[in-house]
């Protein structure tokens, strides 16, 4: 079980890519999925690498990312 887990609000996301650039572990990418506003949204491409550091959420200008952390490691 990975240390971190992120939830991206696809309605809020505008596909700016700042989270992708901020994530130190290559967890995120801009996908080809369009939201109702026409933005190609961010998605999780390497969930196993997420540490729950929340750097992505710190940089997100649209408050589109929620970050969760595992209570205990390696459960």
């Amino acid at each position: 079980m990975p240390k971190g887990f992120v939830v991206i609000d696809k309605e809020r996301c505008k596909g700016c890519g700042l989270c992708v650039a901020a994530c130190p572990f290559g967890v995120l990418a801009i996908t080809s999925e369009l939201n109702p506003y026409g933005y190609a949204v961010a998605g999780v491409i390497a969930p196993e690498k997420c540490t729950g550091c929340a750097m992505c959420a710190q940089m997100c200008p649209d408050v589109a990312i929620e970050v969760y952390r595992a209570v205990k490691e390696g459960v």
Partner: protein
Amino acid sequence: MSVTEVKVPAGYVPVYTKPKSLSEARFTYCPGCHHGIITRLVAEAIDELGIQERTVGIAPVGCAVFLSDFFRCDFVQAAHGRACAVATGIKRANPDLIVFSYQGDGDLAAIGTAETVHAANRGENITVIFVNNQIYGMTGGEMAPTTLPGMRTVTTPEGRDVRTTGYPLRMSEMLAQLDGPSYITRQAVFDVRHVQMAKKAIIKAFKNQIEGKGFSLVEIVAACPTNLRVSPVEGNKWVVEQALKYFPLGDLKVRD
């Protein structure tokens, strides 16, 4: 909301969720706009200080004009540049309220220069969030007093010529010379470390008001990727490589 479609697995606890003083409304800013980060930081500061119920924001004319939709607290939308004057009136009429203005550089440093300078000089007990993106963002990218020398805008297609339009106006340095203000600082949000520093500064600027210390202003050197015509990631680079040359970061005045 699509969030509900994704189930958080058992065994995880939240470490970051949307601040509760923000509403469900999507921000109206462009993708990658630093206004979004700054708006969120103000909400986080309000949450952490537990002042949501007694906070009144003053929205500017500019891309942040719809702030009242984004926040779950009272708001007044001031005439262009007059936010510090409106904040003064509200704070003096009801000193128990926590009053902040949120203004762009066209708003605060061009049409509203006089209101800003005099509110600072009177040491009004208010908090000012000043988003300096070196441009009139909302109206389509015209030159602002803060526009960098040589910077192309729709009204300076050959680049800003300082011989005819002057130099980038450093409001924070000017205000720091006055006796009135208590706290003047310049921050940025181009990376996580600076986002965290900017948040600390915003919290301090609100705390000063709670403690009755007087006028506090946090300038944030920001990027408007749309009018720079660059990607959001390149907008961050622009701040570091260009804007900070004229607008160095750090505290300009701290009175304790």
